[in-house]
């Protein structure tokens, strides 16, 4: 059914992604396809890593741990963005194309007032990506 599942991961708030991660792992196991954990980092040092390389290594370790726990095939893909506060949606959509994902499973918050000004990432990605998108609340 699906060739590859992509899960956008915010390593700084990985604790809030539980349901999305679980869903992706379950679907990965069910369809027997790899789950690719995609993380977007800054080129400047961030609270998670001094360099994009260090971030990529952390993401890879995270993906490996997810694969081990869920028993599915796990990959990781780290992308450095010039301005992730603004470019995140576009970066994720491009990442889905780059890794060849046809399903994106992503966590999203409960809609609020701010969504009228800055639409949620889940909504934006679902609107623009060619892949199927499953938004998990």
């Amino acid at each position, binding site marked *: 059914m699906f060739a590859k599942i992509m899960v956008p991961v915010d390593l700084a708030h990985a604790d809030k992604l539980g349901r999305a991660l679980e869903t992706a792992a379950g679907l990965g196991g069910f369809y027997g396809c790899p789950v690719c954990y995609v993380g977007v980092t800054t080129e400047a040092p961030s609270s998670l890593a001094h360099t994009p390389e260090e971030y990529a290594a952390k993401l890879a370790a995270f*993906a490996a741990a997810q694969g081990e726990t869920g028993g599915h095939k796990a990959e*990781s893909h780290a992308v450095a963005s010039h301005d992730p506060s603004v470019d995140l949606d576009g970066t994720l959509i491009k990442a889905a194309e780059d890794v060849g994902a046809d399903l994106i499973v992503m966590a999203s918050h409960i809609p609020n007032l701010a969504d009228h000004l800055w639409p949620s990432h889940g909504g934006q990605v679902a609107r623009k990506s060619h892949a199927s998108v499953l938004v998990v609340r």
Partner: protein
Amino acid sequence: MSDPSTPPETSTGIPAPEGAASIIDTDYELGQNNIDGKVGPFGFDIHNPVFLISGLSVVLFVFYTLALPEQSSSVFSWLFGVVTKGFDWFFIGAGDLVVLFCLVLIVSPFGKVRLGGRDATPDYTYVGWFAMLFAAGMGIGLMFYGVSEPMSHFSSSMGGIAVGEDGVRTDWAPLGAAAGDAEAARRLGMAATIYHWGLHPWAIYAVVALSLALFSFNKGLPLTIRSAFYPLLGERIWGWPGHVIDILAVFATLFGLATSLGFGATQANAGLNELFGVPVNSTTEVLLISAITAVALVSVLRGLDGGVKVLSEINMGLAMLLLAFVLLAGPTLLIITGFFDYLVAYVEYLPALSNPIGREDVNFSQGWTSFYWAWWISWSPFVGMFIARVSRGRTVREFIICVLLIPSMVCVLWMSVFGGVALDQVIADNYTAAQEADLPIKLFKMLDELPLTQITSFIGIVLVIVFFVTSSDSGSLVIDTITAGGKVDAPVTQRVFWCVFEGAVAIVLLLSAGGLASLQSMVISTGLPFTIVLLLMCVAIWKGLASEPR
């Protein structure tokens, strides 16, 4: 794949810096002093105490200027006088040292070090990169002073030397002036202008930008001004010494932008009045500032690539168009020969112009050079940090050549064209309208003498406005990053806040009599402590580069 522990199916898509060995090992975790949370539906992630103290001190200073206009004006003017007149030797000497330092870096083996690690690739093409650093760096000044500064030096040089009763020169001419000799006055005037807009200001920006880029991209420290001081202050940069450096940087950037925004609105208003008869009053100017802020807001919301870069490229395209037009519509051959002649004049006069001690041309060296140096230096945290952010992937040599030499040449070209045409109008055609006009409209008076005035003046006004937008949006990003403790991915709400705050401060100052001028004096005075910062940065860069793998 540089990390053997990475699973083979992982693709990073990221240049792997081999400079990992040179990362500074500190216990400080980026964002550890930050407070994050939500105000209603809007998130925030701000550095404590830099955000609050910066914001509150700006409000306090604005309040002081409004509540006690006469007192604040006299205090700031006094401070400005002390700084630019008492420390002229320091500014001029520091400027020379910084230029020499950059030139040494170009030819030194350190030139091979790549910002972001040996395998990093440049984030932006040359055109996008250059457009951004130029638009943030000095764009608007070129519109303001392109015609007026060569004209001023020419006029004062023609006037010759005048000495007061106390034996001190009272004229404003550079060096020994050129009384009555139009040709010599033109060369001296252009050389002095190029001195103020060429290597020296760009070397100041280059040093600040290089230190930030090096300590952030290669050493792994947060992208904020304090990081450049790690080799000198060590772990203390995470405490109050670092807070003070960052707060001072925010302060200088915000007031620098707000006062320039105010003055820019007056120039745009004067231009609109010339062209369309739009009344010159505070309502028009407030509307202009609001419009500039609104466009800047859209730009920051679209981000670095979708907003700031696009506008900078539009800006550079328009500026080149205007430059090419004036070059072709004016006395082309004279301008081209002038360009080379002025370069020779610059080299010829440079040793005397950059001499920091024993100057007899006190008004020029203190009122012009010292003023400019303090101004460039007070802007350097903003411009430097912005340049740093967009320069990852360049080698030190490439960086210095592109930040120092190329913009300097563009400035020489700009001044040769705009100043050259305006001077030619005075000398050859006896057209003195630009010479006699007020500062903001000198450019438009010069364009009056060329064909297609309506179109070129309109482009001129658009350029003034777009240059302000590109300064305002990049400034908001810089202030946001500093006040978020070096985080470049803080919630968008914060950059919106700083952008609007900047516009609001500009409007309030514009509406208060003399507020803009007095606060600009205060901002320029911050150039003095930053000059010390600048010199220390040179030491820090040297130490930092020495520990990099080449």
